[in-house]
């Protein structure tokens, strides 16, 4: 057996810091007092059964959903009081996203899809496409650069989606069931490439998954059940 995985220093200041987050949807409590820190370079798996609140937690951390109460900071910014425009800007420049079904723009080529986040940040087309081509190469899908998402396989499409998430050199990548629609072999390839890419940077990953074999790529896991986080030390508030 090999030794311990290199873990990011716990002494580093957290990138994301959530305290006692609460969120309800009508009569349903999605988050019931969740606290969590995510540090630079750390891969944190968020696990739990369907409906446990893990996706709501990710959406709150990513500034997509505003919690009802609690504290939530990204570096020195308060994500609860930030305006929608500020949160939106943060998502474009600081965060990257990988979803279960890639969610690539079907009318654009794979290269244009990867270049899109840079174009939205005002990077000129030539430079954006140069950087996009670099990331397609890193994810070993250069050969599909000129094809549209509908013309590539599920595994290739998901690697294009990972390239798009990483092209802005984000501080945090949020990956929501990134291998959920893939077979074992392709799922493994996506996870291996994603973790290799972030290992060489300070990028943190919040990895929402119900699959233990995917969570095994993380440095640590938090388990959400009934809107609360459980740890091996018992219920954590």
């Amino acid at each position, binding site marked *: 057996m090999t030794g311990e995985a290199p873990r990011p220093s716990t002494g580093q200041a957290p990138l994301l810091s959530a305290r006692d987050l609460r969120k309800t949807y009508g009569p349903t409590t999605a988050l019931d007092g969740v606290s969590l820190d995510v540090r630079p370079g750390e891969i944190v798996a968020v696990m739990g059964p369907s409906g446990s609140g893990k996706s709501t937690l990710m959406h709150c951390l990513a500034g997509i959903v505003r919690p009802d109460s609690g504290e939530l900071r990204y570096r020195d910014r308060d994500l609860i009081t930030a305006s929608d425009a500020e949160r939106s800007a943060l998502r474009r420049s600081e965060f990257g996203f990988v979803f279960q079904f890639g969610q690539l723009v079907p009318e654009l080529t794979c290269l244009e899809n990867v270049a899109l986040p840079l174009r939205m940040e005002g990077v000129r087309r030539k430079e954006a496409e140069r950087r996009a081509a670099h990331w397609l190469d890193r994810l070993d899908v250069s050969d599909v650069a000129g094809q549209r998402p509908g013309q590539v396989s599920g595994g290739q499409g998901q690697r294009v989606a990972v390239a798009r998430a990483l092209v802005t050199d984000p501080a945090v990548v949020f990956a929501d069931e990134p291998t959920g629609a893939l077979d074992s072999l392709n799922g493994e390839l996506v996870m291996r490439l994603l973790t290799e890419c972030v290992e060489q940077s300070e990028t943190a990953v919040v990895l929402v998954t119900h699959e233990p*074999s995917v969570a095994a790529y993380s440095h640590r896991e938090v388990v959400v059940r009934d809107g609360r986080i459980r740890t091996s030390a018992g219920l954590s508030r």
Partner: protein
Amino acid sequence: MSVSHTLLALLERGPRHGYDLKQEFDAQFGQDRPLHYGQVYATLARLLKNGLVEVDAVEHGGGPERKRYAITAAGVSDVEGWLSRPERPDLYLNSTLYTKVVLALLTGRDAATILDVQRAAHLDLMRELTRRKTRGDLADALICDHAIFHLEADLRWLELTGSRLDRLADEVRR
């Protein structure tokens, strides 16, 4: 499964004769393999020698004397330690984990924590195998995959059991 820890934990619910202890063990865990009386009395003798149980009462009837056993403070702490330690993640999860969960429910402990501790131990081993897989050759990767898939089955069982603890509690306390 550790028979001595299981008998000890069953005694935590109240003093019992060896006969009653065997009946209770068989009802909860002995579906396929009931305990032999000899094993029960040999185990109780060992627990007595180690100070984990004591003789609570001796009944003299027409036949041989019947001893009633009670758990000692050292016995309770021994049970506590056993329940809170994760089992070594094995390729095939044995029935120990099921036994621990039932005993936790019977003795009023937090069964969910037992599952949490075990899940963490399983995931740690899966991480180790995943790292080894990405560094090794194909043969090594296939060996790791075999172990990973079995650990994954255990983890699914842990997850499902966690969702059914309330129902299980109702059934075992009946």
